[in-house]
């Protein structure tokens, strides 16, 4: 408190200099905590099933995908039972798409707050990125249950799982910063977000294995496919937890590079445009 007393803020028309002001983020860590807490508490209020929805939603998806893509279309699944094959993709992807679409619309839906009070604007898209981790963790429990059911023991590569989760969060945040600052200026994003997420779903290796791409289109295309960070993340989840395929380090490496680029360009664009948010909101 005392150290803030002497702090001086200059409000001028110049653009922000640093990409992320960590010192300021640290000062507002309690606000971030309360924002995330609010998101989690409010989400299942006034529902009958409550937190069960976090389990039911991915379960239904798994059933539908297993019937349509596993049985009817008979898409190969690297020799893994199709339900757990697709669920290990649904798990990270659902986090990715939900946190991403919430983050994208976050600025638009909180104009009432940030046009009235100052706090680092970056907290707004950051909130869903963190709060959606709660659903992710709950759904993760189902995956563990299914692994028991199918008698699957995770490989030693499971130590890389936190890194994959981090990559997943970094990607969501990067795209979230891009889309949220675009959405506050151009509401077109609101209409586009629906097909963006379904495009991201069908291009991610959720219902099919990435190996299918290498098989059908060759290794170069497979590497290009790695530019989509979720390809490496999802295949990494499968390899480390289910162990039927080797760790796809090629996909993960390419995905990490593109994720870092998305993140820093997103942070830069967000920082560059944040001073006009209150004016255009």
């Amino acid at each position, binding site marked *: *408190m005392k150290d*803030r*007393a*002497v*702090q*001086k*803020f*200059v*409000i*001028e*028309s110049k*653009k922000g200099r640093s990409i992320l002001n960590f010192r300021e983020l640290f000062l507002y860590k*309690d*606000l971030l*905590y*309360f*924002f995330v*807490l*609010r998101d989690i*508490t*409010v989400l299942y*209020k*006034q529902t009958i099933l409550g937190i069960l929805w976090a389990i039911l939603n991915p379960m239904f998806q798994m059933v539908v995908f297993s019937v349509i893509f596993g049985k009817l279309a008979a898409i190969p699944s690297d020799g893994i039972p199709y339900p757990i094959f697709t669920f290990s993709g649904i798990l990270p992807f659902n986090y990715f798409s939900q946190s991403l679409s919430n983050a994208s619309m976050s600025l638009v839906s909180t104009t*009432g*707050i*940030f*046009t*009235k*009070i*100052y*706090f680092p604007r970056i907290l707004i898209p950051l909130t869903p990125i963190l709060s959606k981790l709660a659903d992710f963790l709950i759904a993760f429990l189902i995956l563990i249950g299914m692994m028991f059911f199918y008698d699957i023991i995770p490989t030693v590569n499971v130590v890389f799982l936190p890194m994959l989760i981090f990559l997943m969060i970094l990607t969501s945040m990067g795209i979230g910063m891009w889309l949220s600052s675009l959405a506050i*200026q*151009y509401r077109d994003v609101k209409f586009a977000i629906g097909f963006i997420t379904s495009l991201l779903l069908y291009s991610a290796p959720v219902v099919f294995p990435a190996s299918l791409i290498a098989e059908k289109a060759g290794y170069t295309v497979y590497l290009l496919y790695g530019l989509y960070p979720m390809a490496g993340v999802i295949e990494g989840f499968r390899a480390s937890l289910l162990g039927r395929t080797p760790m796809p380090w090629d996909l993960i490496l390419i995905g990490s590079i593109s994720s870092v680029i998305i993140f820093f360009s997103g942070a830069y664009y967000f920082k560059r*445009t944040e*001073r*006009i948010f*209150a*004016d*255009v909101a």
Partner: protein
Amino acid sequence: MSEYAVRVNDVSKAFLIGLKESRKETLGAELISWFRSPVKNFNNLKRLNTFEHSEESDDFFWALRNVSFDLKHGETLGIIGDNGAGKSTLLKIISRITNPTLGYAEVFGRASSLLEVGTGFNNELTGRENVYLNGAILGMTKSEINKKFDEIVAFSGVEKFIDTQIKKYSSGMKIRLAFSVASNIETELMIIDEVLSIGDTEFRKKSLSKMIQIAKSGTAIILVSHNMLPIQSMCKNTMHLEHGRIVNYGKTNEVVSSYLGNLNKDKTSQTWTLESSPSSESIKITKAEVLPVLNVPVIRAGDPFEFRFEFYNLIENEYDINITFHLSDEYENLVFIGSTALTGKKFNVSKGYISANCRIPANLLNHGKFTISKLFVLKGFENVIYDHSDLLVFEITGDVEYSPGKSGKIDGLLKPKLEWELTAGNN
């Protein structure tokens, strides 16, 4: 630590306003313009960013123009002005919500801005959860809120419902809770926009005295209000903004009275012809004036005076008319209601001219500016057939000595000459 809390240096802020768009004459041209509109829309949206171009342009609207001022720690500044004068924009710049197009502002120390009470209140959360959330939004840390929590809840008076979802609160309870959070922040600078005019009278008084207490504790305060009362009771200095520029800055009393003086130019008499009368179908006003009863040029405190209203009644059938007016002082406080209904008499009228005189007795009102803020004409007791706002503005000046050698303004709205009897020295 700097002696200043805020320094605003030559700040200007531009907004883009929509220019009239050219209308297409043919359907074909219209269709083409639809397909071309994405490009145009993109350019328009892009231009909303007023930082990229600082050149003068037709569709720029300068919400603030070359505003500079300093505020030291412990000082209080009021900002007044009509709607659209730039008051809120200035507060938003000092609050770091928006950036100036030109110039800069410096804020020393932690600032809290109350541009709205209850920012970020979430209906699904309980009162307790909202106190923490709102407190954090306003810049408090969790431990600071913990320390202040009991005080906040006690001030709001919603202790019993603190663990109830606030969607079950009445709007008054929400506002009280929100204000309690906001007023318990400890900062070096507090920026307040109109939030003192919320809640019921009781709570308004309570919040005003809380603000005065905060001001005394050494927090610098910038207060925007349309209500002069909080400005006059809290602020040493006041700034009057008009069209984005500072037109007057100085001691609160001087700035406020010159602002209000400009606002209500005296209007002691108004007349209309039957054609120009702003009246209704049923009755037309033709004249309204205020004049002294005695043969003096001005109305003095201590003198009787008269209101005269003239109407032309268009209703054929006879009816009982009721004429009522509100007399307000220059701060828009209602002083009294004058009404024919309060006389206990019936005033029966038929088609034609009506003249109504109302005499205000001597020794009733104090000095100052007064307004007939409302005039109502009713048919019977319920049926309003005509109403008029801000009909007359006049000043009670001059002076009648109330004691030999003593005259001038005393406190209070009224300056009545009361009947006194004193008994003394019987024992």
